[in-house]
């Protein structure tokens, strides 16, 4: 079985995100970029399926400018077999991404698609669901456990208030949650090998998709800065302040 994994290049989770002074967007100049953590979990899950003998090929796909090849190489170093980059200047919207991926699925015919549930930059949590709709494939989102059972995949989902397990016919789409696995470290020899693994570059035109913008980013503002706290001398003072200053009781 072939497993298709999607990966996204995002601002590193260790970096303190700053907004541009003109409020047009997040400032990405000189900022460290990395593989979206949920995508990393998706790669790990696919590689584990391959190691267990369930999958025989893991293909990673990313969409973006040439720099996103770095994240594809990271995924290849973790154990994926080959990469596909769909070259776009701008970051397409979720629907555009889903349309591009639908075409890749048509070409690659994977048995299973594993994606991160969302990217930590825009936090949309849409692409997996849209892709399922476009391809008419069943979806198991927010997975904390993925078990292949013949032609089915059983996905344990993290839902409000507990866990839900769904059985999906394959081919299917799974989106990962944080507890699915703990990704491995790439080893040095694997990083070297990853440099020589095949990586195809395609354009949206190659896939016959025209990207359209349906939304417009108006303004990005940082959250209001938290005021410094104060120490109160007594419970009475606290109650007084909660009542009259904060007006919460």
């Amino acid at each position, binding site marked *: 079985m072939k497993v298709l994994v999607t990966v996204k290049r995002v601002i590193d989770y260790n970096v303190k995100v700053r907004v541009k002074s003109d409020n047009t967007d997040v400032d990405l100049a*000189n900022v*460290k970029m990395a593989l979206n953590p949920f995508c990393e979990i998706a790669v790990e899950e696919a590689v584990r399926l391959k190691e267990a003998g369930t999958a025989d090929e893991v293909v990673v796909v990313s969409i973006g400018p040439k720099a996103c090849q770095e994240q594809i190489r990271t995924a290849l170093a973790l154990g994926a077999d080959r990469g596909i980059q769909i070259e776009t200047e701008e970051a397409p919207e979720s629907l555009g991404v889903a349309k591009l991926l639908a075409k890749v699925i048509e070409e690659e015919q994977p048995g299973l698609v594993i994606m991160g549930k969302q990217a930590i930059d825009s936090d949309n949590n849409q692409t997996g669901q849209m892709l399922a709709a476009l391809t008419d494939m069943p979806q198991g989102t927010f997975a904390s456990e993925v078990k292949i059972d013949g032609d089915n995949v059983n996905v344990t989902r993290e839902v409000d208030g507990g866990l839900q397990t769904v059985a999906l016919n394959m081919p299917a789409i799974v989106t990962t949650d944080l507890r699915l696995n703990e990704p491995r470290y790439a080893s040095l*020899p694997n*990083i070297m090998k990853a440099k020589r693994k095949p990586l195809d570059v395609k354009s949206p035109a190659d896939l016959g998709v025209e990207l359209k913008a349906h939304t417009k980013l108006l303004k990005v503002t940082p959250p209001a800065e938290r005021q410094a706290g104060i120490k109160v001398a007594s419970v009475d003072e606290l109650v007084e302040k909660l009542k009259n200053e904060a007006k919460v009781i």
Partner: protein
Amino acid sequence: MVRESMEFDVVIVGAGPSGLSAACRLMQQANETEQELTVCVVEKGSEIGAHILSGAVIETRALDELFPDWKGMGAPLNTPVTEDQIFMLRNEEASIKVSNILVPKTMHNHGNYIVSLGNLCRWLGEQAEQLGVEIFPGFAAAEVLYNDDGSVKGIATGDMGISEAGEQKDSYIPGMELHAKYTILSEGCRGHLGKELIENFDLAAEADAQHYGVGIKELWDIAPENHKPGLVLHGSGWPLSDGASGGFFLYHTDDNQVVVGLIVDLNYSNPYTSPFDEFQSMKHHPVLKQYLEGGKRVSYGARAITKGGFNSLPRMTFPGGIVTGCNAGTLNFSKIKGTHTAMKSGTLAAEAIFEALQNGCEGGQELQSFTDKFESSWLYDELFRSRNFGPALHKFGPILGGGFNFIDQNLFCGKIPVTLHDDKEDYEQMLPASECKPIDYLKPDGELSFDKLSSVFLSNTNHEEDQPIHLKLKDETIPLNRNLPQYAEPAQRYCPAGVYEVIEEGQEKRFQINSQNCLHCKTCDIKDPAQNIRWVVPEGMGGPNYPNM
């Protein structure tokens, strides 16, 4: 478990200016002569440049030699220095602008560039990769490997996935042995493997004690009307006092940004000195405040520098390798610049090693040819001429020492026929707390000055939580039993990241090491009066994530 190993011709530890220059020069020579050569660079930071912090105003001499067409190749040197200003800060309000005529000419910056050294290293890394170098960020060189005959065989990267208690976690992968015919140690100031090699091969036997400073730096977005691209400010004086010396810098780079920093010499004597608080106070001086006011701090970091210069420079070669750059101490203190010298020492190492390999050398030799090349290079000449600069300031103070330096540099071009020595280790200078006065530092105002924790936050530093503490105490009782009563445990103050804390819980006192905050500056390894703290590498990827620092 037996570690896997990989073989290379040359392994380089540290992707800074020195290591990357060496890597580029090695492959340039190999490509020119169509020779097979395998060169590998390991870097503990999560990416190239993540741990690089420097002013920086750089002289391009070494870069001109390495990549004559660096401009055409898009090297990130965008801001030529347009004006030099030097100030003596007399107190919190007053300052004297020093006339350019009275400044040692080594301090003039005409023809130099204001850069982000992090971005320059990122660019050098790209060049190295294109030339065929294998670079591995996120892998920390944790140990030196030796051959049976005692020569250096390479290094081993650290194990990943060890818990704080020392047990293997699920994510465990053992380190790799990287064997090489020659190993270049370019870890920067006080690199922990370089330190081991300098000790093991007694490389500093004939050198004076090494001297250090800790540089603390911030990057600011400032109001466009205050921004003067190319303007370079240097100076000294207030608020440093009580036996502490050092100098500040403020450079106007591009994009309405300035970098501001203070280097505090680590030979200060009052254990109550806090380089961090000195720096925070200093920003309130009108000379600096005029530019920073209304601006916003973007990033923060700190790094020690090696500044002993010529007299303190150890032998740089040992059987099987070479120590280069700030790891050895090639910084030119009279210019307050170490980038071009670090780069040059790296390219010289590359040339000596390549020559040896081409002559069929199987590795493991001590390369006298490096020393010959070094001694006949401009680097040696430059370091020789500035040999008195630091010792004069240490011995005679900023006024008389500065006068000596003016005469030495401007009238004798550094060839004054005397050599001053300063042979006392920085950590030995600390006086008992009982003989010193606590220093009452300014409380941060949240506009110009800040506390340590919010500062460390801006360094984007991160370490995997569950791992062994990488700041090793040789004797765990010393902080509370000796350093606290004698020196009021100065680690609480010299560490610019708040790693060390003495916590009182009722009657009990506890010494806490917040190793997750560590900025890898190495000050603790240098300044602890008991020399009890050993800085070792944490798990690869850990540490700061500096942007364009």
